[in-house]
């Protein structure tokens, strides 16, 4: 079942969000993750992908600089989700496409599109409805190509790179420290090695002086 739908522009400007039936904190959490996801999307990103995130799957589709996201339960067929995204992207493109890319677009300025979202959502609600079965059966939307990733990988990939660079720089400073310390230890070892020899030879010299020069 489709829980929530979000439409964003490439520059992370929200255009429309569905009015959702439940206020489950887990879902609210997913929406927050979606926001981070949007900020990570670059022109080189996959045009469509599924991201596994906890109890939910996040499906997204990018069409002409607009990102369509839906949050579904894990059990909801991917094919249906993408066919839903296709449908809303066509409709949004037709009704608000140019307006949404203009400079005057305001955050959530297309909330009237929610009417279409809720209607379409209802059609896709029932997985067994005849039309939906047809959609499942035909291979028009070949979602096998769609990449699946885990949200953790996506969200924390950047973080781990940062962590790597942190690690390497701390490694560098540590190694410098170790080098200095090693030099000092070497010196100490040297001193410790030669101190007895020097001592014995001094005593020997004293004895010689005592024995030979006293007279």
């Amino acid at each position, binding site marked *: 079942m489709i829980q929530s739908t979000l439409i964003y522009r490439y520059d992370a400007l929200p255009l429309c969000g569905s*009015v959702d039936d439940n206020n489950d904190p887990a879902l609210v959490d997913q929406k927050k993750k979606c926001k981070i996801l949007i900020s990570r999307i670059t022109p080189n990103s996959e045009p469509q992908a599924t991201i596994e995130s906890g109890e939910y799957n996040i499906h997204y589709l990018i069409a002409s600089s607009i990102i369509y996201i839906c949050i579904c339960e894990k059990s909801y067929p991917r094919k249906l989700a993408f066919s839903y995204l296709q449908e809303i992207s066509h409709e949004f493109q037709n009704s608000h496409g140019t307006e949404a890319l203009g*400079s005057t677009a305001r*955050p*959530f300025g297309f*909330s*009237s599109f*929610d*009417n279409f979202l809720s209607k379409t959502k*209802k059609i896709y609600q029932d997985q067994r409805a005849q039309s939906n079965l047809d959609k499942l059966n035909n291979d028009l939307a070949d979602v096998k190509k769609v990449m699946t990733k885990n949200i953790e990988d996506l969200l924390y990939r950047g973080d781990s790179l940062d962590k790597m660079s942190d690690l390497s720089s701390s490694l560098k400073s540590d190694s410098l420290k170790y080098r200095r310390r090693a030099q000092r230890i070497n010196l100490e070892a040297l001193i410790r090695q030669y101190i007895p020899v020097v001592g014995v030879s001094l005593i020997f010299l004293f004895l010689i002086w005592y024995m030979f020069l006293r007279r």
Partner: protein
Amino acid sequence: MSSSRRRAYPQPSYASGPGNAVGGGVPVPQVNQFQQQQAYNGVDAVNRQFQGLNVGGNDAYAARTAGGAQYGQYGQYQQQPATPGAGVAGGVSQSPYDQYAQTQAAVQQPLAQTGASSYYLQGNNNAAAALPLNQLYTTDLSRELPPPISDLSLPPPPLVLPPNSTLIPNSETANASPEYFRSTLNVIPTNGSLLKKSKLPLALVVKPYNALKVSDENVKVTSDTTVSRCRRCRGYINPFITLAENGRRWRCNFCNLLNDIPSSFEYDEISGTIKNKFERVELNYSVVEFVAPKEYMARAPQPIVYTFIIDVSINAVQSGLTGTITRTILESLDRIPNENKTARLAFIGVDSNLHYFRFNEGLDGTEVLIVSDIDEPFLPSPDGLLVNLEENRPAIEKLLIDFPSYFEDTANQGFALGPALKSGHKMINHIGGKLICFSATLPNLGEGKLSVRDEASVSGKPKEAKTLLTSADSFYKSFAVNCNSSQITVDLFLTSSTYQDVATLSNLPRYTAGQTHFYPAWTSAKSEDVTKLSKEVSDHLSQDIALEAVLRVRASTGIRMSSFYGNFFNRSSDLCSFPTFPRDQSYVIEMSIEENINKPVVYFQAGILHSTSFGERRIRVINLAVPTSAKLNDIYASADQLAIVNLYTHKAIETALSSTLPDARDFLVSKVVDILNVYKKELVAGNVSGASPLQLSTNLRMLPILLFSLTKHLGFRADRVPSDHRAAALNNLGSLPIPYLVKYIYPTVYALHNMPDECGLPEKLITTNEETGEEEEVVTTNILLPEPLNDSKSSWENYGLYLIDNSSELFLWVSGNVVPGLVEDLFGTDNLYAIPTGKTELPEFSEEESEFNFRVRQIIGKIREQNDSIVWKNLYVVVGGSSNEPIEISQQRDLMALRMWAYSCLVEDKTGSEPSYRDFLTSLKTKVSQ
């Protein structure tokens, strides 16, 4: 300059420019002459001037000084205004304050050598004087009888600000008009002890909206989504900031922190054009709306939702409430704000069961689903209960037409309001919105069940307030707080003919920013009742409400918001939460002075973050700048009596509910005594021992009569009042905006029998045609009203016709000895005792048939017409007593009660056990002399 003057306008801590450092004194404030002569005509002028200053500055020091002077209102100038006309060239002072000015001239002398500072200097010699604040005039209350009621419609004492206190010089629109934002004191004391000594309260009255519809209000909206705020105090950029560092940064007028000017103020990235930052609306207007960027949205703006909870028990059906309401909703469907076509509606019918209406979305026909389990109410269907208005319009219309017929033959006396509210909450809690309840029955089933309270035994006794006016069931308050957190507002329309416990039920709207509307003994058999209810419900539904709103008021450092009054929930220390923001209420915020204020002007700013009814997230910001003074007479001369009355009304309500009604009345009287005492001790010139004790500044002279009238008001009077009426009156007192509140406390009376000929007709203005020089008459649409009279029988003639407007009803008083011709003209009959009395309407005659009738109706129409309130006033026709009236008339109990009711509006007279205003003044004399 006297030392006290200097204390009043001390050197501000932040104005420590190089000039000050050298001078070691307060810089002479001045208006730049150059600027004075040349009316501000756009930013270019200012810029040119600035450039001139900078170019000429070959001396670094001078350039810096000049720079310090120039940026945005010339930081220092702002502190002290000049008395115009004392300008002298060359640094020689002729000002009356010569000693001081000469010092200044000496300080400025070195600067004179550099061309850069010539403007500065010219202005500088424009001798300085302290801000001429409002003058104090004293009035003897006991000689001013009857009180001059024209004062009630006067604006508050003007706010005297230094001429260059705004960023845009001499801006007319920089300071909020009193309709939006007014302070009880238009001169703020510089420290807390002075405020305490003055015995005047310090509070702000905020009314963020001044019309029910967006289109009736002209509020500027920013062009982009840039919201520039101070990093420390989070204040919004406003017309009172100052610019610094070549206009790259702005100094917050609340906390003095320097903030960056956003690049979009100067340069439009999208179109690549350079913009003029001085043209931005937020720097020009005191009331602006910022379009909020996405950071201000916790979730997408939600659609507007109305859930109608309709009483369908036998009381409601028989009184005609169910039928009237469904018809009214049907007729108002087009008026519901629905620009986006996203509005959603739901209907629940309530008796001892809950009746849900399930729509087959997009298709015709509805199912009625009845749930009789009221202990654990549940939603009988996962969808189809809350539906889109636009897409289900035919089905909704059909339901509303059929609705009364479903319940025609009911005999069900139960009314399970609590469970209905809970299921309504369940239905919309994921979106938020409004629960609108129409009820004609005391809730008598399920959670929140109420019972009739024993009025007879406590009425008129001190414990009346405790037993009758407090909440009888904690369910209502806790449910209201729940609703608030899920962004739900509850509105009540109560129409019972018997006890309905308004006191308890009104908790629901109070904490959810809703409103309680009370129609005692309402019945659809009376067409006037139907008109009133349906007009008010329809206007209520058509308001352009804002959703998911929060209000926060900021003030300059040293001032703290201490208590908040009005219908909302105080979520954290200073954040007021409104699930939906109504457009017909006002709010009062009391303040305390925590630290000494050493600035000549303090600032207040109200910010309301909200989503509009068409789904845009916006912030409405209202700014107010108020001068300060350390002198008691300045403070008294600029006190705003109407705002003070508004605050004391709230405080008296608080006292009544937490203590007793007599305590509340005593509180009001003691406030008058305190103020008179302070005035007598501190401010009466010479302090002559024989002088009348009842002296007060002229701008406060209506305060005693207003507070005195308040003690006689329905909500506070000592006579027996049905507790529902009292609770409803207290509720109104606590939410009405000032103009309506004043009328509610001190009703307006018009004499119609002797009104001038032009009254009641469209106002004609005579203007002179600019081209021809001939005088032309322009007919406006504004109906001219007669001058109001005092609320006292002594000003009445026994043959007169009077109209009383107490802001909830209109009384047309036809005196007993009225000329038969007038009765004939007005009512179409010459028998005074044959005219219909009580709640009625006048017969309608055209202007040709009876000019008098036409004019009276025009006046009534004008009084009823208001675009910032939903209240529709019913007209009551009252025939006054006379010595020759037939005995059967004088024995009519209805008429007697009606006369008593109308008389109770005449607050200056002795009514029942309450004293008259003259008696009150006499009793004050003894209290003050003590």
